């Protein structure tokens, strides 16, 4: 690879890449994001390669291993060109048929098409699927289109042109002003205006200055940062190089979660390739700008997503947050000025520079500009990554894009913001999604996790789950956070066992407020939100646990029981064999019953019974 020595050479390189490629060549883009890998995408790819070789046509077809397309629920999925045919839930045994029919003869295999669950109609093209239709893909636009390990793919699609534009004659101050004017806010949770952060680092007199990309995406049920890194790593690198030019930094760090091996791998490859083209490293595009990125693997600690804890971790210490009375932009990493932004924030930068701040600020609401990627998960039909403009209503997100709740159950709440956020009840679904509105409702934007809860989810159990999570993940230095969470968990545990009182519920609420008030870092200051928001909107559920000793959703184990309906049971002995506690009695072909003293309520009988004879109460 030849290094680019002038910004103008990038365009020449792009032309060469485009000329080298045949736009009409058939290709199959197989999604190999972590989600699809989990459902067997690699097997699909390897059987593609095998069959193409067997038929001796492997030169006529590009098998492209792309990043996540977003529609994880339907994985493994692929898009076949020409025709943009979208196949979903493909397994390795379908591959031969796909090659023979679709690729060689252009026939469409009906069985592999996506079926609209509402109308029952089969959909051929990806962009016609309702899940994609309502989305507005900016940062995620190229994720399923390019091969993340090929820098040429990114350049072909216009990558690094924002960097070129900047280096060709926009001053650092103008770049900062542009980002500020765009109204972009931090996508990691807090929503701090990115431009103001940059400006303050730009004005800092100390040097050297550092940039950090926060990819320690710890929120459970949240995976867009990892998928963005594995699917389009160069967009993040480009954003960081522009940032380095703007604030005057020579060294950047990316702190990636250790649980994302593919993201670490793909980002590492991307860094190498960018260096080889002279887009990273010494004298970038011959402009005199030098900037490099080092990859730090996270240690598996949620609290390291907090900026000061992350900095402590890069410095080689335990991830204990520090009191942030001076901003990181003045004294951050190694006590030097530091800009720390989330993956999605960095990926927004090239888009803003390419299209202009004015264009960007037209997207979204008054205070929240641009788009946001959400991980739509939980009790929802279309699990996956969705990118929507800020200000879209929760209802549009969950019902229209997400396809509602499976099995015709009723939606109860939407949990946003991970362990720092809260639950928004069904009657507030028309709430527009932006930073302020979510905070007013007692939740927060967070990193973009969105977990749908239906009537079979117990809200006390959800609160308890998050407390158990934060108890485990708190660094433990603040007494209020460490002991406060432990005590809150103790109380919620009492409640889920039906051993609590209304006085204890008041204490729980008081505790949650005090812990929020008294703790040092973001983790402690928000860990009360799941408790407070569930008490605020679902107090009756708490009261049912406390007063009636009942779990309305049938989740809390101590408050439910299993029994066998004598009419429906035909004595097949299936449940009896499965029961780990030998708590089920009964002769063959006679109805069984459950010995309540021995039953641990594991639920395996309920799952095993084919005759719906096991009843949960």
């Amino acid at each position, binding site marked *: 690879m030849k290094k680019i020595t002038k910004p103008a050479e990038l365009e020449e390189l792009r032309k060469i890449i485009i000329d080298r490629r045949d736009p009409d060549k058939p290709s199959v883009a197989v999604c190999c994001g972590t989600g699809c890998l989990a459902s067997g995408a690699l097997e699909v790819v390897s059987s593609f390669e095998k069959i193409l070789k067997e038929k001796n046509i492997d030169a006529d077809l590009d098998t492209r291993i792309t990043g996540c397309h977003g529609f994880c629920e339907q994985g493994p999925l692929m898009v076949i060109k020409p025709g943009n045919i979208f196949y979903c839930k493909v397994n390795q045994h379908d591959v031969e048929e796909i090659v023979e029919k679709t690729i060689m003869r252009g026939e469409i295999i009906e069985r592999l098409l996506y079926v609209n669950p509402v109308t029952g109609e089969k959909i051929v093209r990806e962009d016609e699927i309702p899940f994609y239709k309502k989305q507005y893909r900016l940062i995620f636009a190229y994720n399923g289109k390019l091969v993340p390990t090929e820098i040429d793919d990114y350049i072909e699609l216009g990558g690094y042109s924002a960097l070129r534009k900047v280096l060709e004659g926009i001053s650092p101050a103008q770049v900062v002003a542009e980002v500020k004017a765009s109204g972009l806010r931090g996508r990691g949770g807090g929503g701090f205006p990115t431009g103001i952060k940059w400006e303050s680092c730009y004005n800092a007199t100390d040097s050297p200055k550092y940039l950090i990309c926060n990819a320690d995406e710890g929120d459970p049920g949240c995976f867009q940062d990892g998928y963005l890194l594995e699917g389009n790593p160069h967009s993040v690198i480009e954003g960081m190089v522009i940032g380095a030019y703007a604030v005057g930094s020579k060294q950047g760090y990316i702190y990636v979660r250790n649980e994302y091996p593919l993201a670490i791998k793909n980002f590492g490859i991307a860094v190498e390739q960018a260096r080889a083209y002279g887009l990273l490293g010494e004298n970038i595009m011959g402009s005199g700008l030098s900037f490099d990125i080092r990859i730090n693997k996270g240690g598996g600690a949620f609290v390291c997503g907090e900026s000061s804890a992350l900095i402590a971790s890069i410095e080689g210490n335990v991830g204990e947050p520090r009191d942030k*009375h001076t901003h990181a932009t003045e004294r951050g990493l190694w006590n030097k000025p530091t800009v720390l932004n989330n993956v999605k924030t960095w990926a927004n930068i090239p888009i803003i520079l390419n299209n202009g701040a004015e264009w960007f600020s037209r997207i979204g609401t008054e205070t929240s500009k641009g788009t946001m990627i959400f991980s739509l998960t939980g009790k929802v039909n279309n699990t996956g990554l969705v990118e929507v403009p800020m200000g879209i209503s929760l209802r549009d997100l969950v019902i229209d894009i997400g396809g509602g709740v499976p099995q015709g159950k009723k939606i109860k709440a939407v949990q946003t913001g991970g362990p720092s956020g809260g639950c928004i009840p069904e009657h507030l679904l028309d709430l527009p999604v932006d930073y302020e509105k979510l905070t007013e409702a007692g939740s927060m934007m967070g990193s973009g996790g969105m977990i749908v809860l239906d009537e079979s989810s117990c809200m006390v159990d959800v609160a308890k789950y998050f407390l158990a999570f934060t108890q485990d993940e708190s660094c433990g230095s603040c007494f209020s956070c460490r002991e406060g969470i432990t005590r809150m968990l103790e109380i919620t545990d009492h409640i889920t066992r039906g051993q609590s009182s209304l006085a204890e519920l008041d204490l729980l609420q008081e505790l949650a407020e*005090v812990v929020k008030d008294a703790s040092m870092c973001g983790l402690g200051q928000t860990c009360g939100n799941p408790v407070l928001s569930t008490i605020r909107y679902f107090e009756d559920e708490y009261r049912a646990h406390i007063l009636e000793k009942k779990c309305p959703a049938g989740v809390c184990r101590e408050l439910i029981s299993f029994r066998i309906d004598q009419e429906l049971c035909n004595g097949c002995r299936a449940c009896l064999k499965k029961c780990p506690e030998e708590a089920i009695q009964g002769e063959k072909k006679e109805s069984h019953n459950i010995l309540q003293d021995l039953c641990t309520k594991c639920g395996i009988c309920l799952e095993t019974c084919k005759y719906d004879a096991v009843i949960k109460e």
Partner: protein
Amino acid sequence: MVNFTLNGLEVSVEKGTTLLEAADFYGIEIPTLCHDKGLSPYGACRLCLVEIGTPGRSRLVSSCTYQAREGLNVRTHSERVIKARKLLIEMYVALCPSSKVIQCLASKYHVTKVRFSPKHEDCILCGLCVRMCDEQMQAKAISFVNRGGRRLVSTPFAKKSEDCRLCGACIYICPACQTRCQGPQEENILCNACLNLEPPCLEKFEDVMCYMDPCVACELNTDKKPNK
């Protein structure tokens, strides 16, 4: 010099002074369990919380780590501070009822009930011993181990440490294993033997004002609640 407001008084301190030091200088007592003048501030016990900012847009910070800034409005005994501090002391008593230091705090800050089940721990993880061993004794024999709810202070692998010189400084500085409190009974973990009457100010003001002479709260008409 930095000028700011401390409980309504205009004060000035040298640049770099923490709020805790400033309050100490002006004779205002702020309780703390993890602070020692010879060690670096850590901000872990959260008892030294003070309220900064104007009401409505204020927040709580630990005064031992927060440096005074020009024009800051600091309240060390506001209602919000007292509410948080009392609940924290309540949790401290439940965690470690045998500590005299903690029992005395409870009496001083009028904590008269404990709603949590007692744990009878010996350590409150204030980190004084860890910093003492590191910063003053230069031994670095002990450190925090694990995280979150499982955190504790230990030597590596919980074995006898080669770095430890048995100087005893860690024991000297520990607030939890100092003189044991003889007061608490089995059925009531609170001692409260040295309980003082809580000043009635909070019923009328957002701040405790009893350090003022004469006491404004006591002289005021009970019907008027000027700040509330």
